């Protein structure tokens, strides 16, 4: 039986829910909750306006068909599923593709300064894995503009008072209470395993506090920092996902890590150069002569090797990221044909990404944001010189396992509490932290979309869950929350007391280098075995770190030790998942097993944490083929089988134009954009 009032607990408290993470997914979830009348406590490690969504550059996909090419949500669905090498459940992807045009229109209404056509309509550009102009964009800082738009709407809800079910407002009780600079530590769970709130730490005062919540959404992004340097922001350690995994949440397809083909190497970060550079006509090449001495701009056309265009005439420079990254890796690592550096006398791990043949004015209007980054960090003018780039870890397709309820149209049942629910009752996940939409490889410009769509689904799902909840978390005994606080305080005190001689940042550097080398583009089982053994060694060394900062105020060092502990747990999930999956699918590539194996591996990797379950008593992983979980009194049984009810799996080939979609004719009209090699022929 549901609680008496949907909005107030029996003891008269406002029944708030919690959203952790303030990127696109967290903010969209928050807005949907507020619109459903559910007040939210929003926690974020940094001011939400600085979340990692801000880094997204190229744009957001929606089949609006502005260019009259015959694009449709059906084609978007097919290309997304094909691009992901048939590892994604298809109903959520359909829901996303169908909702996409509405999402972009909503963002436009919120004031996102999208680029325009001469008629004043939204402009769209090309991206990888499709032949259509499907990507709406605001210069080359689309993620920033989208994040700001949602941030502004959430800020508006910070000024609006909560209203109970009788329509009475409670002055001063705002719809959104924002807690910025709070680090997620763990969930509060009751004896039945139901999520009752969150334990978080104020990273300034270091106060540890438990907050009750009738439901919790984790929207904490990906784990890119497990790989040391990546295109990710420094906050993307995956610590929150790891923490709930250790509390019993299932982690799915951890091995599916996207490596983006074009980034600028750097000492602190590998900075992304968006796929939109190629979408606007940029070409990838290396000199035909591996000892070419001339500068890139001086190498004549006949001496250039446009290796993507040659090998993939259908999609050219816009093949999906996993394929482009493998080809770049092949050129540089195996053929040693990267750009020659006369000073060092060796071929660098770099290829040219060339925009110099394109009109400067158009580049400025559409790509200034990324060209500025290149100019500032490399000190070369990309309007005049081909850029030098190399692949970098970019995105995790894998993440917390979440459920969905399929509707009669093949998409999702709107408002079903199963949508985006993890296997921990009352815990939802949305955004890069979930595993739902991209299979084994994500198409460019689908991430902003999946974040926002997941938020649009999660908000209503949590609202339904809250109304079905028989006892509000706000009526739970205070002892439950005090106990959770005590548990986390003890862990924190233990870190503060660590006085070994290891440095956590150096351990992290070693972890990153190892993961980067052996768990990215090419994976070999013997090397993965070594990585797994090394993870245990690093784990053991992490127990012996010394904390040189004992301050009770803004103590970043101790927080980092916690993040490192959690990163090691996820590193194990990623590497073991890769070790197990003996096939090649999307971003997961094993030269020993070069083919996709649908008979054995067309299924979701589902990992559960096994505390102390490893070979030598260290933590292990329990892989399961099915799972039972409960949701508001209902027992739900799920398996690792993939729902392929909408698009039948077939081999994935990008050599031929239009191969990614059966519905697409491949008969795309040439537009006025300069795209010599990528137009369909």
């Amino acid at each position, binding site marked *: 039986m549901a609680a008496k009032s949907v909005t107030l607990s029996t003891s008269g408290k406002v029944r708030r829910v919690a959203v952790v993470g303030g990127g696109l997914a967290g903010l969209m979830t928050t807005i949907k909750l507020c619109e459903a009348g559910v007040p939210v406590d929003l926690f974020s490690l940094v001011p939400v306006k600085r979340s990692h969504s801000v880094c997204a550059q190229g744009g957001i996909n929606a089949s609006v068909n502005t260019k009259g090419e015959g694009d449709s949500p059906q084609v978007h669905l097919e290309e997304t599923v094909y691009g992901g090498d048939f590892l994604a459940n298809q109903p959520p992807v359909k829901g996303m593709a169908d909702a996409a045009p509405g999402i972009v229109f909503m963002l436009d209404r919120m004031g996102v300064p999208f680029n325009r056509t001469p008629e004043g309509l939204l402009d769209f550009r090309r991206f990888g894995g499709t032949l259509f102009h499907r990507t709406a964009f605001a210069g080359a800082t689309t993620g920033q503009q989208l994040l700001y738009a949602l941030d502004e709407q959430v*800020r508006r809800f910070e000024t609006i008072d909560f209203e109970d079910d009788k329509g009475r407002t409670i002055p001063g009780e705002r719809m959104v209470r924002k807690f910025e600079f709070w680090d997620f530590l763990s969930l509060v769970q009751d004896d039945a395993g139901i999520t009752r709130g969150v334990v978080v730490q104020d990273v300034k005062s270091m106060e540890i506090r438990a907050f009750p919540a009738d439901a919790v959404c984790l929207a904490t992004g990906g784990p890119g920092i497990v790989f040391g340097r990546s295109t990710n922001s420094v906050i993307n350690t995956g610590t929150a996902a790891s923490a709930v995994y250790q509390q019993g949440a299932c982690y799915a397809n951890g091995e599916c890590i996207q490596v983006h083909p074009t980034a600028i190497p750097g000492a602190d970060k590998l900075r992304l150069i968006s796929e939109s550079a190629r979408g606007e006509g940029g070409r990838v090449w290396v000199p035909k002569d591996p000892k070419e001495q001339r500068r890139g701009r001086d190498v004549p056309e006949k001496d250039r090797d446009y290796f993507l265009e040659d090998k993939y005439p259908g999609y050219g420079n816009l093949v999906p990221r996993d394929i482009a990254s493998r080809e770049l890796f092949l050129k540089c690592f195996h053929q040693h044909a990267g750009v020659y550096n006369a000073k060092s006398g060796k071929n660098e791990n770099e290829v040219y990404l060339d925009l110099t043949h394109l009109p400067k004015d158009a580049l400025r209007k559409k790509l200034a944001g990324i060209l500025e980054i290149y100019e500032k960090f490399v000190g070369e003018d990309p309007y005049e010189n081909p850029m030098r780039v190399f692949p970098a870890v970019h995105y995790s397709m894998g993440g917390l396992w979440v459920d969905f309820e399929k509707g009669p149209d093949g998409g999702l049942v709107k408002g079903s509490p199963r949508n985006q629910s993890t296997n921990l009752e009352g815990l939802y996940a949305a955004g890069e932290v979930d595993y739902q939409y991209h299979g084994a490889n994500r198409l460019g410009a689908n991430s902003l979309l999946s974040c926002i769509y997941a938020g649009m689904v999660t908000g209503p799902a949590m609202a339904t869950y809250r109304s079905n909840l028989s006892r509000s978390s706000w009526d739970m005994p205070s002892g439950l929350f005090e106990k959770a606080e005590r548990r986390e305080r003890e862990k924190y005190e233990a870190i503060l007391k660590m006085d070994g001689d290891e440095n956590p940042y150096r351990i992290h550097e070693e972890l990153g280098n190892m993961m980067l080398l052996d768990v990215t583009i090419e994976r070999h089982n013997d090397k993965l075995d070594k990585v797994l053994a090394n993870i245990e060694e690093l784990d053991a060394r992490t127990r012996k770190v010394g904390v040189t900062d004992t301050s009770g105020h803004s103590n970043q060092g101790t927080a980092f030790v916690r993040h490192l502990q959690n990163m090691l747990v996820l590193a194990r999930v990623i590497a073991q998942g890769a070790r197990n999956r003996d096939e090649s699918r999307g971003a997961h590539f094993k030269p020993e097993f070069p083919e996709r194996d649908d008979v054995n591996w067309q299924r979701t990797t589902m990992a559960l944490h096994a505390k102390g379950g490893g070979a030598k008593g260290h933590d292990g992983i329990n892989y399961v083929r099915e799972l039972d979980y409960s949701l508001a009194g209902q027992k739900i049984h799920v398996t690792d089988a993939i729902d392929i009810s909408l698009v039948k799996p077939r081999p994935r080939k990008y050599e031929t134009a239009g191969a990614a979609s059966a519905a697409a004719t491949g008969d795309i009209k040439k537009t006025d954009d300069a795209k010599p090699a990528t137009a369909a022929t």
Partner: protein
Amino acid sequence: MAKTITLKVQRQDSGDRPETKRWEEFAVEWHPRMNVISALMEIRKNPVTSSGKTVAPVVWESVCLEEVCGSCTMIVNGKVRQSCTALIDQLSPNGETVTLQPMSKFPLVRDLVVDRSRMFKDLKTVKAWIQLDGTHELGPGPRQSQENQEEAYPLSRCMTCGCCLEACPQVNEHSSFIGPAAINQVRLFNLHPSGKMHAGERLETIMGAGGIADCGKAQNCVEVCPKEIPLVDSIAVMGRETTKHLLFGWLLK
């Protein structure tokens, strides 16, 4: 011996403990493509000062490291800027010492971290949002000319980093001046076809004490803005709009 870079960092344990304010020097081995952040990251791996004292790692704020999040603002060699784009080879071509200080116009938290929450509060004050009817499907948004988009887009890139407030002489402990960033937001939202419908309301938020009239026209803001937002133009445009609103706004009521 490998080339080293000297970083001189102004530190303080917390805002309420001014007695802990001090300078510490660190020698860091040079590496290619080094920036202030990668130098600070090296210090974390070996938090020992030039005089051999083991200390707590330097505390600073950073997120994206590509000058789009606004986190890592500090004063580098006396100039306020984002520290991720502060390249060591440019700051110290001949091994000059690089100095790092926290911004001075915001309450200090610790070392290089300051509290910029007032800037986010100001975004509430000026109602920097579109009054959306809801996120349900309501069809396409209003059409906009390319010209309008090209005027709005540069304004929309403000990262709330605080550089303009730090550089503004009118922002100080004796004034309540809201500063250029928030005024620029009023211009941005008043440009949007639906934002325009509430233009007057927004203008009124910058017409009172601490509002646009407090600008002293020093023009430092536009000099330091890492995103080259035309802040002086925004203040001038909003100056005209507020005057118009003051004189004729009542006619529209």
